[in-house]
């Protein structure tokens, strides 16, 4: 078969999402961010919201999310994305407004902004990438770092006497009256990627329907700072992260 014979429409099984910009990503090979970016791009395009979406990027590895997804973006100060999203959604109620935040941004410095935006029931979606470590600054302890897990600021392992316990923000979010849909997903294989995509779609739909605030946590890897191969990182995540951060929907009030 010639090349021309192969690249026909009917043979298409996969393509780059149209909203994913054709630029090299700064993420490390094996990182979960790229997969989640792709899912967001696909969902926005499928919902036909390219001209109505405003993303808020965090401080952390995803600070440059605005370079990769072809929509309007605001880059927030560390932890403050939910405050920005609150104002944007209140001022432009018919837009899709979502934040994209890591564990340090959302569950540490921005805990206040996150909880209060969710509790007010702002009609936004928060995408929460939890890889249990600070990636961009070089592998420091995060609020979600597991007990015993080694990072450069807990080199002997996270010790609850010294560092307290890993924070389950998603469980907290599920208890808040203002939240509509709270779920925890992962993107380490095809099945989980498809499930995560459905979760993001549902959260975006609820946001647009004005049903309250939505939180989609994606339990992720940081193979670079975990100092593992991508494959080993996925395995380590399944064995160590999933028992503590259990996957699945924690709350779905969308059809109530």
């Amino acid at each position: 078969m010639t090349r021309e014979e192969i690249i026909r429409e009917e043979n298409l099984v996969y393509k780059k999402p149209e909203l994913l910009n054709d630029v090299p990503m700064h993420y490390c090979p094996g990182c979960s961010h790229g997969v989640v970016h792709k899912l967001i791009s696909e969902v926005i395009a499928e919902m036909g919201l390219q001209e109505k979406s405003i993303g808020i990027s965090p401080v952390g590895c995803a600070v440059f999310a605005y370079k990769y997804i072809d929509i309007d973006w605001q880059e927030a100060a560390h932890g403050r994305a939910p405050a920005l999203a609150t104002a944007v959604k209140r001022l432009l109620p018919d837009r899709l407004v979502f934040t994209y935040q890591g564990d340090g941004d959302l569950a540490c410095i921005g805990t206040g902004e996150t909880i209060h935006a969710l509790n007010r029931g702002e009609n936004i979606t928060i995408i929460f990438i939890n890889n249990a470590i600070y990636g961009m600054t070089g592998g420091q302890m995060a609020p979600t770092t597991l007990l015993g897990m080694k990072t450069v600021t807990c080199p002997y392992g996270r010790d609850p006497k010294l560092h307290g316990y890993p924070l389950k923000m998603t469980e907290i979010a599920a208890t808040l009256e203002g939240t509509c849909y709270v779920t925890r997903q992962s993107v380490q294989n095809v099945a989980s990627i498809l499930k995560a995509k459905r979760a993001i779609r549902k959260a975006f739909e609820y946001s647009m329907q004005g049903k309250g605030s939505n939180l989609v946590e994606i339990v992720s890897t940081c193979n670079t700072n975990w100092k593992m191969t991508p494959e080993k990182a996925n395995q380590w995540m399944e064995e160590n992260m999933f028992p503590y951060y259990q996957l699945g929907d924690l709350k779905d009030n969308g059809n109530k």
Partner: protein
Amino acid sequence: MAENEITLMKGNEAIAHAAIRCGCDGYFGYPITPQSEVLETLAEQKPWETTGMVVVQAESEVSSINMVYGGACTGKRVMTSSSSPGVSLMQEGISYLAGAELPALVVNVQRGGPGLGTIQPSQADYFQTVKGGGHGDYRLITLAPASVQEMADFVDLAFELAFRYRNPAMILSDGAIGQMMEKVVLPPFKPRRTEEQIAKECPWATIGRKGGRKPNIITSLELRSEEMEINNLRIQAKYREIEKKEIRFEEYKTDDAEYLIVAFGSAARIAKKVIAIAREQGIKVGLLRPITLWPFPSAKIAELGQRMKGILTLEINAGQMVEDVRLAVECKVPVQYFGRLGGIIPEPEEVVEVLKKMVK
């Protein structure tokens, strides 16, 4: 309230009413004495039912200023207000607003510090406001109202300047002006801008890339130093333009003056009383009241300084603006400071005594 009706209200209330009337799209704030009446008045007025203005009580000043940041990104007229400790918390967001070149209004109804300090009036946030309280090289367009009328008038002016230069603006007031009632004529109603107007006037706004335009991205981040230097130089060039075009001040009885008081805000009100008393006693004294604290009327002060025997800055702080006055006159005229601290407002008589000593 009818158009052009003279009414009596607090400075803080005037800020709220003026915001509704000048087409403000959103207010985001957190209670703190002595400025809480701004949020209270807005909540009572329910502008979301009339003009469509959004009012949100945030969980903190940190959140308020970041809501302002998010709102400003959409090209809307958005504002917050607070008092000194709250404004300290906002410094991060203010720096981001300046860095991302976003128009927004912050009102500081100052109280005395440092720390929790006092709830009584103060002007001790002069340095914080005009020298850059947050990180990085930036400036805030700063208006200092000296009456309830100016509280009302400066809201629209601050927004106009903020949008003209894509830079945050500050109304630097204090507890005295905020809490005082005076007569005021509120500005006429001006409709909020439509989305079409915003899209046209603020092509940078992140409101969704309608019509398939290229995405708008608002960020203050630039990791390439050469590019970041260019960004900084562009912002600095804008500041030079503002310094050239937007200096505002009031001159009072300077024609025959041999001595000059430089004072802003409520201190300028006291200065006028001082001048009345001092002139009865034969001291020829006038007032230069900076209305914009940045850009500062340095050239005007230098010009007036040439024919003065002495200059006194009257400030409700430990002597902050005095540094800028000394720089303006390049030490060619003796410049002295007088002020009170801790929330005490200088009494006219004690200032007259200081003047008398200067004359001797």
